[in-house]
């Protein structure tokens, strides 16, 4: 039986190879996701261990577990360094402070030296020590008026060890330091980031954080365990500081990286599953057609004594062979995928550290199970059908009777209805938890696609006729024949284009969602922002010096300036999401969404979000107790209540006049500017840019530019997502090639006839290609329509102030349909050529 099955497989090698390829793609993607995630995990585990290799204990503010993205963490006094260092259990203690995008080196031409993408890190370093992860490459550690930087930055800026380096400070001032040496981090590589290191006092001065540190790292005295060390440090610390062992820190860091890598890996896996899902349709279609073509052969085998079960086993064996081969190739291909993705993300700026790709036994097992599983599952229906072939079929002549659609419609509906229900439940209902929601959407989506695919056979013929009508009109009889063939076997048409339909449905869905976000954003901007210009940190929206607001305010071209600064405050004892803003000018640059009271809250008042107020039972005029970062505590009156139309994403608003006094640094993340009426915007802008010129990290944009930037970012995301989904189209391509080859083969005799009565090779090729084009356009249209529905449903499901309207990207959708048609034409190239090369006489005398 095995040999018979393998012979069957060999006889249809070309077709099975195409099928194989479609499985390989999905499997390779699955394997690639695992390989990449596993490799990254190992690499980052190593990075975490390297970074804290000599650290036995770390002292930090309670609640600061290092995963803060902008490193604006609660800081504390450096006075504890010496008290910890004095402990007999400690051999060495070092305080550290760092921040991103605050200081920069400036080259001889006055240009700031910055990497594109990765951030610039400014931090303290006391030189090589048991707890340090920086290494000297050249020169010495920085002391006093000295600075150490990474070699790439040194090369880019043309800096030499021993020579002066100009450093641009957060305030915009320039200061000169001497380059003491070049350094790198851990086992080498800085991930593209630039480093600027000083000793602790100088760093505190540069960052305007005098007397403060982020953390203190401690090495234990000989023979003292980290636990003992931590226990010894604890009594020295106040309540809001804690000491943890190095192992805890490493564990936390690994976990943080791990979470990120898991999300990343799961997203990739999600795409892989979509591709695999799509390829099941191709496998199913291939086996269904093969079984159909072999009906006579199976009938013959049945009549000479093979049991139905044996026939079924043959089909399964063949499918299993395809799955096994695909798993093997896919596993190897996974390395390529992983390497490719790594490269892709590196070029996109998010450089991954170097490290080997690794394959785990788990990956191997999953890949084989998935590859075999997908193939076997797709062959179930064809195998059952093969088993039911009656011995009498051996003697039937002519083509296969076309099975009525009834069963298919019943099945399709039985799958579609629960599919849609599940999908809606996932999108609009509350299945409880993210994974439940994703599962509901995933399974619901899969069932919906299967259902639509099955039901589309109902109208595939009619729609193909309509799409083909202009072809028939324009291309004469070749078009007419193409149209006729396209609508000839609706079941095959619908299963052929399913992969294309799903791929384009997802791509169009993403396109609709993207357009909706952009349209909503557009509307939001025009409603909410009245500023002529904004200023913000261009890399990651980090903080910058609030002194800028005062400088801008002195410009005659500027009418109003308002700065916005994130706050660490406690209201009635609870940590809250709060922002400080210039309450006098704030409303003139942005919509504060004030519903009651005033935005001009002043230094004795505050404003609160309406839902928070309701929750806490607070009203206008009520008083709350507020504790600021520096410990200053005061009672403030609620002067205003705002709703979620506010641009500011916070629950509490304070006047910046008050908050700048009680923040450790006067830093802001955003400033809005309006021009003095009657001023030429270009002149005003030039004046503003002269002021911001000394802050290289800042971007100055008007509404249009801001919108454009957001659009570019979202478009880029759309491209990445669609790029991954394009794999579905590749699978779809294989599917179309496969079907067209099968169709040509089945129609050999008809092709012979056409050639005999005078159809030229060229006409025949053109007719096959048009047929594929019509089929593909049908699939593409179906996909785009489904995509619009999905996108629209997503907009409703996500709906909050962020997405307020549905936008349809007509241009893109039309392009998708055209692309679908072209895909079909290209896919038909080989089958068409094959058809044209058939020998007329042989073709006409085929059974």
């Amino acid at each position, binding site marked *: 039986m095995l040999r018979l099955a393998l012979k069957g497989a060999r006889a249809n090698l070309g077709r099975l190879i195409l099928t194989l390829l479609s499985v390989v793609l999905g499997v390779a993607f699955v394997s690639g996701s695992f390989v990449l995630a596993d490799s990254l995990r190992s690499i980052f585990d190593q990075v975490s261990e390297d970074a804290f290799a000599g650290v036995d204990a770390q002292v930090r503010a309670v609640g600061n577990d290092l995963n803060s993205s902008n490193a604006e963490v609660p800081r504390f006094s450096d006075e504890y360094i010496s008290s910890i260092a004095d402990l007999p259990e400690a051999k060495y203690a070092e305080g550290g402070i760092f921040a991103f995008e605050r200081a920069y080196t400036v080259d001889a031409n006055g240009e700031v030296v910055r990497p594109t993408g990765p951030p610039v890190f400014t931090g303290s370093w006391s030189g090589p020590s048991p707890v340090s992860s920086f290494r000297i490459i050249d020169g010495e550690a920085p002391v006093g008026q000295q600075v150490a930087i990474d070699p790439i930055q040194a090369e880019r800026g043309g800096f030499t060890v021993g020579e002066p380096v100009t450093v641009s400070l957060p305030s915009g001032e320039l200061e000169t330091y001497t380059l003491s040496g070049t350094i790198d981090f851990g086992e080498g590589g800085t991930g593209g980031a630039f480093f600027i290191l000083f000793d602790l006092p100088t760093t505190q001065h540069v960052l305007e954080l005098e007397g403060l540190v982020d953390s203190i790292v401690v090495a234990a005295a000989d023979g003292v365990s980290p636990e003992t060390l931590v226990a010894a440090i604890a009594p020295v610390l106040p309540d809001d500081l804690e000491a943890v062992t190095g192992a805890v820190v490493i564990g936390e860091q690994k976990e943080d990286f791990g979470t990120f890598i898991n999300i990343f890996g799961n997203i990739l896996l999600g795409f892989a599953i979509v591709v695999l899902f799509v390829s099941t349709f191709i496998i199913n279609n291939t086996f269904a057609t093969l079984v159909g073509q072999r009906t006579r052969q199976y009938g013959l085998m049945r009549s000479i004594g093979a049991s139905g079960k044996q026939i079924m086993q043959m089909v399964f064996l063949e499918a299993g062979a395809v799955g096994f081969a695909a798993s093997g190739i896919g596993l190897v291909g996974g390395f390529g995928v992983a390497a490719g993705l790594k490269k892709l993300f590196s070029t996109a700026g998010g450089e991954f550290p170097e490290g080997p790709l690794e394959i785990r036994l788990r990956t191997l097992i999953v890949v084989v199970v998935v590859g075999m599983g997908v193939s076997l599952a797709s062959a179930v229906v064809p195998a059952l059908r093969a088993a039911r072939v009656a011995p009498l079929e051996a003697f039937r002549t002519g083509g296969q009777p076309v099975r009525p659609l009834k069963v298919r419609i019943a099945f399709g509906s039985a799958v579609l209805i629960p599919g849609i229900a599940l999908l809606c439940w996932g999108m609009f209902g509350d299945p409880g938890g993210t994974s439940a929601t994703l599962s509901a959407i995933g399974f619901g989506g899969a069932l919906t696609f299967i259902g639509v695919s099955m039901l589309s056979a109902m109208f595939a013929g009619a729609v193909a006729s309509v799409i083909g009508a202009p072809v028939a009109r324009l291309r*004469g*009889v*070749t078009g*007419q*024949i193409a*149209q*006729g*063939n396209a*609508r*000839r076997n609706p079941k095959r048409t619908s299963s052929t284009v399913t992969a294309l339909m799903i791929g384009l449905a997802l791509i169009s869905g993403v396109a609709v969602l993207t357009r909706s976000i952009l349209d909503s954003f557009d509307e939001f901007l025009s409603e909410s922002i009245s500023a002529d210009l904004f200023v913000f940190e261009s890399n990651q929206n980090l903080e910058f010096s609030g002194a800028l607001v005062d400088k801008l305010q002195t410009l005659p071209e500027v009418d109003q300036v308002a700065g916005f600064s994130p706050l660490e405050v406690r209201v009635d004892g609870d940590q809250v999401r709060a922002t400080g803003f210039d309450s006098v000018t704030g409303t003139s640059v942005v919509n504060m969404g004030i519903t009651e009271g005033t935005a001009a809250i002043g230094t004795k008042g505050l404003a609160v979000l309406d839902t928070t107020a309701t929750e806490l039972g607070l009203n206008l005029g009520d008083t709350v107790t507020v504790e600021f970062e520096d410990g200053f505590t005061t009672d403030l009156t609620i002067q205003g209540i705002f709703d979620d139309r506010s641009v500011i994403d916070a629950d509490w608003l304070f006047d910046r006049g008050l908050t700048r006094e009680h923040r450790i640094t006067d830093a802001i993340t955003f400033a809005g500017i309006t021009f003095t009426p009657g001023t030429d915007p270009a002149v005003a802008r030039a004046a503003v840019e002269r002021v911001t010129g000394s802050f290289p990290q800042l971007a100055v944009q008007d509404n249009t530019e801001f919108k454009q930037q957001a659009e570019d970012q979202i478009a880029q995301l759309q491209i990445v997502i669609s790029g991954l989904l394009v794999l579905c189209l590749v699978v779809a391509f294989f599917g179309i090639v496969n079907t067209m080859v099968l169709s040509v083969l089945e129609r050999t*005799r*008809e092709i012979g*006839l*056409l*050639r*005999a*009565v*005078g*159809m*030229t*090779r*060229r*006409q025949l090729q053109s007719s096959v290609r048009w047929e594929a084009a019509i089929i593909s356009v049908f699939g593409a249209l179906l996909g785009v329509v489904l995509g619009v529905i999905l996108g629209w449903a997503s907009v409703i499901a996500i709906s909050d102030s962020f997405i307020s309207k549905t936008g349809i990207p007509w241009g893109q959708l039309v392009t998708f349909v055209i692309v679908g048609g072209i895909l079909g034409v290209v896919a038909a190239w080989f089958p068409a050529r094959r058809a044209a090369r058939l020998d*007329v*006489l042989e073709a*006409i005398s085929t059974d």
Partner: protein
Amino acid sequence: MSTSQESVLPAARLVDGVKTYGSGDAAVTALDNVSVDFQPARFTAIMGPSGSGKSTLMHCIAGLDSLTSGDAYIGETRLGDLKDRKLTELRRTEVGFIFQAFNLVPTLTAEENIVLPLMLGGRKGDREWIDNVIDTVGLRDRLTHRPSELSGGQQQRVAVARALASRPTIIFADEPTGNLDSNSGSEVLAFMRRAVDEFGQSIVMVTHDASAASNAHRVLFLNDGHIVHDMSDPTADRILDTMKSIGS
């Protein structure tokens, strides 16, 4: 034997036609130096036992197969000189075909099938003539039907109409009644004969059915790649007698 007037150009002819399949020891000679003329406005039947070379003879003259040596002509055109494209055009314009089965394109209607060769050439054809043909074969009320909706006899009548529609130099029919019951068969043969008698069409028909062949003006008998007998104004009985003599 053949009463060929030198002034009349044959519709098709074969000169010293040799067709060999395979090579070396396995070589089979299907046509062994055959020369034959097919006169215009004549209905010729080709008969012979299986493997006698009758189908090969027809395929080679019709431009579906190529000769190993010798020349085949349709009208004045020598087929051996033509590339596939020209040959295809020749089949479209100068030759009509009626096959035993699977004569029609299933996705086209009866009428579209009839004008298919014309459409492939981007021609409208002579509408009056086509209407005439359609009425002659009695298909007026079946024009919009697809082949699957037609009986076997009707399908073959459509095939006859298609062969006639472009007024080709010559029509080749390969067992055109082989799949039909005797009533439908005689009907189809009657139409073919009318086409020759009334419209002056030339037809060559390969068959092994003596009564079918008796509709022809002339019957050629083939055996082992040779023309062994050339009979004019045949009757079914004479044909059967000749067949017997060849078979023994």
